[in-house]
């Protein structure tokens, strides 16, 4: 119960981590099944339809439900601490964001047991995703599930924007903010502008499918290419939503374990902003072969290539942060150091793809599959592992085993390169993507075999990580406040895990790397900016959970509103939108209660604080 009603950002972080971990596991199993099917030519392990469902759900789950919540977990766990705040700006919204995300994700995954998963690819290109060609409810689960989950993400993004703008500790100007806070800030801004686009697209597609609208239906005056524009106007910024937090994590981990401040801090900030800005201007590079004409193709080629410049700045700044430092190879830093060359490889293939005439060949082949796994797995996932190992003691008060951590790193990264490096060549040799099998004698066999073995090795890496988490959870919570000894930012000034109110006294920030600055000045901790006083805390509430349950029920009801259940009572309930109405009633009722009955929260008094 405590977990359902909590509004504490540290607990919500753990909820996000659990949810993300489970969805990531599901997506990972789907990936393994896909790779087993492709291990040899003309394999019959999976049938074609199941295969298409698996690739669709793998992509969708990984992007929207697997890595996003882990990003949000780290943001929730770390951001308030890093900026010296007691919580996020809107704790209630924070909980609401998590629950809507979770119920959206559950809805999407229910498709497996409720008549078939979506099968039109995670990009759901129309007309394949229209009700004429995708006849099960699969794509409805996709559109409605993602709308609900996307609502959660949008709420989360707005919350972090407000938090970072308004809740920084005294003295922490924007240019004294840790890089991870900057990355979160910019990422949230991208979310704010990108998610409404996909929501609009998903609503239109839902209307096409369920209400018979014609937005993407050529015969009714619609245009399927429009879907591609809407999807990628969201979709490209989305990949920056994914990678910028990883950039932020790497920018925290590398300085800590090099015992040096981040090289070129202001250019890092500038590069982050520039990447976010350019990220909105390149969407059509996913559509070079759609037939946009040479002018559009040329413009989008050049704008895409330009992104390489700020990205390059970041890579060199990380390298020169280590230059002249004292680099320690702890597990988090292994992941961070592994990130640099791996991500660079993904970045350079990105520039290659940006050249439209070359992309005519690369597009929709295994070359692209290799590219985006290098940036997402080799970039984001390595970054997340760095972050998880780094902040684990702060989140849970226990150090993960370094020994197992190293095993995780080496099996995962070797498996990763085995799986995806060869895929560049498969694509160039003529293997298109999203094929459920392939003919023999095309010289695809060996490389596919290697790729599948690599995927197995990555799976082993994940098992090491799970074992590490399990073993660690049984140890006493004895992590020090600053367990890595070289912590530079505010989160390391308080106990691990932090008390409910985070900071007994809000700290005064006197520079970039606030804690490091105090340490080098010979101080033991931060100078407080206020006397010990009573601390205002928000109350736990069940409303966010109820609202999300309501939306979940309404979504399910709407999806089946045109179905014949062969049971007059069920049909009556669904076909007259009674189920939908019931769901909405729960949601709006709960909103009403929340508005009518003020809850002023509670206070922790100074005596209690001293008592601890």
């Amino acid at each position, binding site marked *: 119960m405590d977990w359902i009603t909590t509004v504490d950002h540290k607990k919500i972080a753990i909820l996000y981590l659990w949810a993300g971990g489970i969805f990531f596991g599901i997506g990972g199993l789907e990936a393994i099944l896909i790779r087993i099917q492709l291990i040899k030519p003309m394999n019959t392990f999976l049938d074609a339809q199941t295969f298409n469902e698996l690739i669709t759900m793998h992509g969708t789950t990984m992007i929207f439900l697997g890595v996003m919540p882990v990003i949000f977990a780290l943001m929730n766990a770390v951001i308030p601490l890093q900026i010296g705040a007691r919580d996020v700006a809107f704790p209630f919204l924070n909980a609401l964001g998590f629950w809507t995300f979770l119920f959206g994700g559950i809805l999407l995954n229910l498709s497996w047991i409720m008549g078939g998963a979506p099968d039109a690819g995670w990009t759901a290109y129309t007309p*394949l995703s229209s009700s004429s060609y995708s006849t099960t409810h699969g794509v409805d689960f996709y559109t409605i599930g993602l709308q609900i989950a996307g609502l959660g993400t949008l709420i989360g993004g707005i919350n972090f924007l407000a938090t970072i703008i308004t809740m920084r500790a005294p003295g922490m100007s924007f240019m004294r903010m840790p890089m991870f806070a900057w990355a979160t800030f910019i990422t949230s801004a991208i979310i704010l502008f990108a998610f409404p686009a996909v929501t609009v697209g998903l609503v239109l597609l839902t209307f096409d499918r369920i209400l018979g609208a014609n937005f993407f239906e050529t015969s009714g005056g619609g245009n399927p290419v429009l879907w591609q524009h809407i999807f990628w106007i969201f979709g490209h910024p989305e990949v920056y939503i994914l990678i910028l937090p990883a950039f932020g994590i790497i920018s925290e981990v590398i300085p800590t374990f090099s015992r040096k401040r981040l090289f070129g801090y202001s250019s890092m900030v500038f590069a982050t902003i520039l990447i976010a800005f350019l990220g909105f201007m390149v969407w059509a590079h996913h559509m070079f072969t759609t037939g946009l004409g040479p002018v559009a193709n040329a413009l989008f*080629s050049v704008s895409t290539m330009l992104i390489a410049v700020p990205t*390059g700045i970041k890579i*060199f700044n990380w*390298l*020169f942060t280590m230059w002249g430092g004292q680099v320690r190879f702890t597990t988090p830093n292994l992941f961070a150091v592994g990130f640099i060359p791996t991500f660079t490889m993904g970045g350079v293939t990105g520039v290659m793809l940006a050249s439209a*005439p070359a992309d005519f060949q690369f*597009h929709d082949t295994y070359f692209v599959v290799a590219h985006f796994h290098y940036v997402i797995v080799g970039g984001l996932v390595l970054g997340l592992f760095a972050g998880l190992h780094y902040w684990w003691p702060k989140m849970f008060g226990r150090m993960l085993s370094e020994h197992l951590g190293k095993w995780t790193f080496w099996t995962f990264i070797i498996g990763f390169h085995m799986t995806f490096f060869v895929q560049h060549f498969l694509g160039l040799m003529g293997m298109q993507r999203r094929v459920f099998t392939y003919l023999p004698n095309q010289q695809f066999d060996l490389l596919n075999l290697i790729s599948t073995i690599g995927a197995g090795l990555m799976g082993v890496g994940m098992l090491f990580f799970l074992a590490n988490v399990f073993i660690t959870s049984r140890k006493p919570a004895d992590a020090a406040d600053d367990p890595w000894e070289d912590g530079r930012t505010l989160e390391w000034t308080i106990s691990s895990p932090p008390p409910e109110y985070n900071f007994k006294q809000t700290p005064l920030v006197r520079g970039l790397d606030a804690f490091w600055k105090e340490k080098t000045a010979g101080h033991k901790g931060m100078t407080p900016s206020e006397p010990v006083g009573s601390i205002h805390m928000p109350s736990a509430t069940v409303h966010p959970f109820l609202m999300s349950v309501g939306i979940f029920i309404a979504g399910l009801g709407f999806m089946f509103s045109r179905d014949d259940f062969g049971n007059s009572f069920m049909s009556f309930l669904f076909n007259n939108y009674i189920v939908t109405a019931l769901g909405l009633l729960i949601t709006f009722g709960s909103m009403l209660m929340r508005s009518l009955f003020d809850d002023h929260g509670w206070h922790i008094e100074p005596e209690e604080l001293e008592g601890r």
Partner: protein
Amino acid sequence: MMKTWQAGKRLLPMTATLGLILAGCGRQDLSVLRPQGPAAESSFGLMKLSITIMIVVLLIVFAIAAYVLIRYRRKPGQHEIPEQVEGSFKLEVLWTVIPLILVIVLAVPTVQAVFAAGDDHSDDKNAVKVKVTGHQYWWEFEYPDYGVTTAQDLVIPAGVDIAFELTTKDVLHSFWVPSLSGKIDTNPDGSTNHFSFSAPNEGVYRGKCAELCGPSHGFMEFKVKSVSKDAFTAWIASMKAPAVMPEDPALAEKFKSACLTCHAVGDMVGSNGPSLTGIGSRESVAGILLNDDTGVDGAPILENLKTWLHDPQSVKPGNRMPDPKELGLSDEEIDGIAEYLAGYTLE
């Protein structure tokens, strides 16, 4: 800096070897890395340029990373605090300007090639016009200037520019012959695409659908047969010859009532399915069962036809052809039609 230069020098032989390795990759009739026509050459040229630039970048990053990780690891007993460097204006300008230059080096030829590829020869009198239509899961090729329509095998005269007009009858597909050219999507009416390529050498090239289009997307293959101009003219003539029907009149009647409602042979037109005119001379059955008497890549055509006709769904799941048995054909009739089709060859 020294290190970087040494890496740079080592690069030249590396790129040369790289070129060789790449050229050895894949089948000549399929691989992007073994271009067989000007359009594919142009893409490959840009790829080689970008790969070379990118390998230089990677080597620099890897070299600095390796140096830093070895040179600056923390030694036991090291306790003094390293100097906290804020940044270096000169260095930062350097690694902004150099990538910018590299981007320009790649952007200029890219833009040139984009506009060159934009020439679709649709007004070119000498080009052969072909209308490509994608269907779940087969390809239709119409030659409007000749009044000929075929399927699965695209026959073109070698060395002549082909002006394509591409659409789809159902979902999106993408028309891709890796060794001849990059791909282009087939969109529904209203967003029709045009593009062009040519195949200077005679030969058979493998083509694929490159846009997820349903369960049998991976099986939506086709062939491009580049033949001499004379052979092309002869092929057009024999495609226009009157239809050949099964000799046995009963079988012919069955064939007409069960098959020709969708398929066409010669001048007898059905258009819901691929034309069967001259199917005996094609490279494959249904695009995916390769005809190969030696049995290396596939099976003899008669065997392939039987495989297909006895159970189309098992060959291409989700395809739109009804099971001949459900159309009222017996096993013997199916075998008879298979034999007739296998024997229906062109010059």
